[in-house]
């Protein structure tokens, strides 16, 4: 990637921060919520709190946050249900806070629509890094049309279609598809995708990639069991279909 673009991105991130991104923290543990608030405020974000899953959607609608930090286990309506509700009406990035690191719990959270997750106990820096990564604006969207298999991607218009049929994707899924489509000749390792799509410099859980690829396939493939758009390269990673 050229130097200039990197710098542009850095400037944009700073702009976002100065805009005081609003972050909705949904967590029933008051001490933790307060501590997260301290850390976020310290880094120039504006936290909004909600301690109850049942009210989370109302608070979300009224506060219109730029990002949601969501505890997986909540009294009343649990985090996964909240995640589904939010996802149903918004593409806002959702980062799960989870005390469970069992694969099934993580996968369940990601499948309900979360973009990322942070396992407890996390470091403040880790949390902030994840939040920033998700708030990072997408690349400058030049008018560009990409194709993989029978899928057409309008990058600027943020739309994906097969023939005349439009396919609705979350921003993260869209970014994942675009990253693969831009370099159809390249095989992406999971680590590379984590870096390019999620923006992680350090290795995170590659299950993130697996789950999101599955989710993407369920939306864009005609037969997710025999994928044609996103292909698995055994032992390496993924690549775009011909």
């Amino acid at each position, binding site marked *: 990637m050229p130097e200039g673009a990197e710098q542009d991105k850095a400037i944009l991130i700073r702009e976002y921060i100065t805009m005081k991104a609003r972050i909705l923290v949904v967590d029933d543990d008051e001490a*933790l919520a307060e501590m997260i608030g301290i850390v976020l405020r310290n880094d120039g974000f504006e936290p909004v709190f909600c301690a109850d899953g049942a009210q989370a959607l109302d608070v979300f609608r009224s506060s219109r946050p730029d990002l949601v930090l969501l505890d997986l286990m909540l009294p009343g309506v649990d985090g996964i249900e909240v995640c589904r509700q939010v996802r149903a009406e918004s593409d806002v990035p959702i980062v799960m806070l989870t005390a*469970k690191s069992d694969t099934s719990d993580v996968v369940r959270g990601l499948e309900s629509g979360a973009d990322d997750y942070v396992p407890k106990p996390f470091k403040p820096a880790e949390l902030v890094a994840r939040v920033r990564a998700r708030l990072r604006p997408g690349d400058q969207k030049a008018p560009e049309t990409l194709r993989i298999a029978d899928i057409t991607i309008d990058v600027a218009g943020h739309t994906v279609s097969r023939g005349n049929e439009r396919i609705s994707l979350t921003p993260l899924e869209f970014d994942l598809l675009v990253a693969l489509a831009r370099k159809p000749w390249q095989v992406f390792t999971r680590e590379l995708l984590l870096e390019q799509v999620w923006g992680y410099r350090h290795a995170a859980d590659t299950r993130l990639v697996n789950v999101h690829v599955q989710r993407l396939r369920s939306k864009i493939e005609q037969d997710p069991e025999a994928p044609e758009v996103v292909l698995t390269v055994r032992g390496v990673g993924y690549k775009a279909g011909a």
Partner: protein
Amino acid sequence: MVSAIKQGPEPAAQDGAPVAGAPAPAGGSAGDGNANGPSPAPEDAGAASLRRLTFRAHLWRRRALIVSLRVARLVRTGFRRFLPALRFIARTLHRRWRRSLQFRTVLTTLLLAVTSFAVVGAYLSNQIANNLFQERLTQAESETSYHVKQVQDTFDGAQVTDQSSVITLVYDTLNAVEGRGSVIQRRYVFEAMPEQTKPRNRWVESRASDQLTVSVIPPELRKAVQESGRDQYWASTVIPVGTEDRPGIAVGNKVDFNGTVYELYLIYDLNTAQQTLDEIQSVLWAGGAVLVLLIGAVAWYVTRNVVSPVSHAAMVSEKLAAGQLQERMVVRGEDEVARLGASFNHMAASLQEQITQLATLSQMQQRFVSDVSHELRTPLTTVRMAAEVLYDARHEFDPINRRSAELLYNQVERFQSLLSDLLEISRFDAGVAVLDAEAEDILQVVAHAIEGAAPVAAEYGSGIILRAPEGAIIVEMDARRIDRILRNLILNAVEHGEGKPVTVTVAASQTAVGVAVRDHGIGMAPSEAARVFDRFWRADPARARTTGGSGLGLSIAMEDTKLHNGWLQAWGKKGSGANFRLTLPLRQGEEIDKSPVQLEPEDITMPGEPGNSNMLVLGTGGAFPGPESAAKEKT
């Protein structure tokens, strides 16, 4: 056609027996029974009957040859055409024989029944034939002596006057022997004895019943009669009656008439006896067949009664084993079979109860671990974040508070790693750890682990050397767990390596991949190598806990390895460092037979004490490498 011809030789054999001169159907025993009587069987073979015999034998041999050739050809073509079907039938029967107790029992019963009936039937029919013959023989002998006496008396009292009256007398006398009525009771052959002076008035030379000549009398009998005084002899023979040959008994004696000695043979027809015997035999056959079928049916019914509950039980237990725990046997009545069913059901019920209980326990344990995890982690996160905020601001504190903030930060860190290790171990103990295996390049994982350990290694001043083949080694594995194992081994080696370089060797075979992590530090004794995978175990309790590990790292590594069906083994020698070897199957579900890397390093050659190497092989459960491979590696 086949069956018709096949039966051909059998009558021949039946005919042959009496012709051969051996005393008819039951001649042997009859002869024995008569041994004390005055009639030993004749011994010489008559030339005429021998010729007839050889001619017929020759004829039948030719016929049999032709028939057997035809049959062979027919069988061959039929065999070729029906071979697949025959094979199929044979296979089916063989499979049923192996798999069905009922089939086997019924078939065995049938075979045994047929064999015993054949033996009993043969014995019975032999006995009956003997008795029939014996009875007829006794009758024939008494009748003969009576009639011979009658004839002799008639001859003695006769007035020998002229030729015609003599001939009339002789013929009438002999015809009277044949019996009154329309049925001929006995036949006769009347023949002047040869080689005697012929008186002038001998008008009768020989005389026989209708269709008979002297040739039907066996020469042995004739010889016996001729050579004896006035004794009575008998022999079996064949007589022509109408168009058929019938078995018969010839009883002979001598009579005098008019100065001439005549041989008088009375021949008794055994046809009625033979018919009776045939009837009895056919009754025996039919009865035997019916009885065998009945026995087969009974065996089938009885075994079905016993076997069907057993096969039902087998079916039910298969279903139980497949996880259908609610499956039960049908119990009817109070007999042994019902008891079997009842106790089977009892067993199934207690099995179901225990399994349900275990499943509940496991679920509870799992939920407990999960709950503890959540409950502990949430406050720990707050504490950790607070500690970090304080730690980041430590420059603004006075020295005492600064040190406190540093201690708090470090110990929270340690507490956290201990907690996560404990939770990991408890997850293994609860059996909820699952392998999330995917085919990935292990070299990348190794490189990643080395990269992760590099900062710590730099701190200790020891380099990490990687010896690995070019390209990629694709292994079906849970990369997260393998990364954790390798990171643990490498950090362990760095920690105990005393600043000397740590070597990581990777090698693969057709079935397995091996990663060895070797340090040249203080090393360990074999007794210590045996315990490194124990929880919370430390080589030297007095030694400072420099890295602050939880003491669970190698235990978790061992659990992770077991999950992969791999081996994790340790070798150590005091002063020569240690070597840890991880061996994984390339594909899950395969067994490792030999690790591609050596456990005992080649670079430790201690002159003078080759046998003192402290090698220890720690197997992981069922994947223990066994003494052969261990010995191989020891060389």
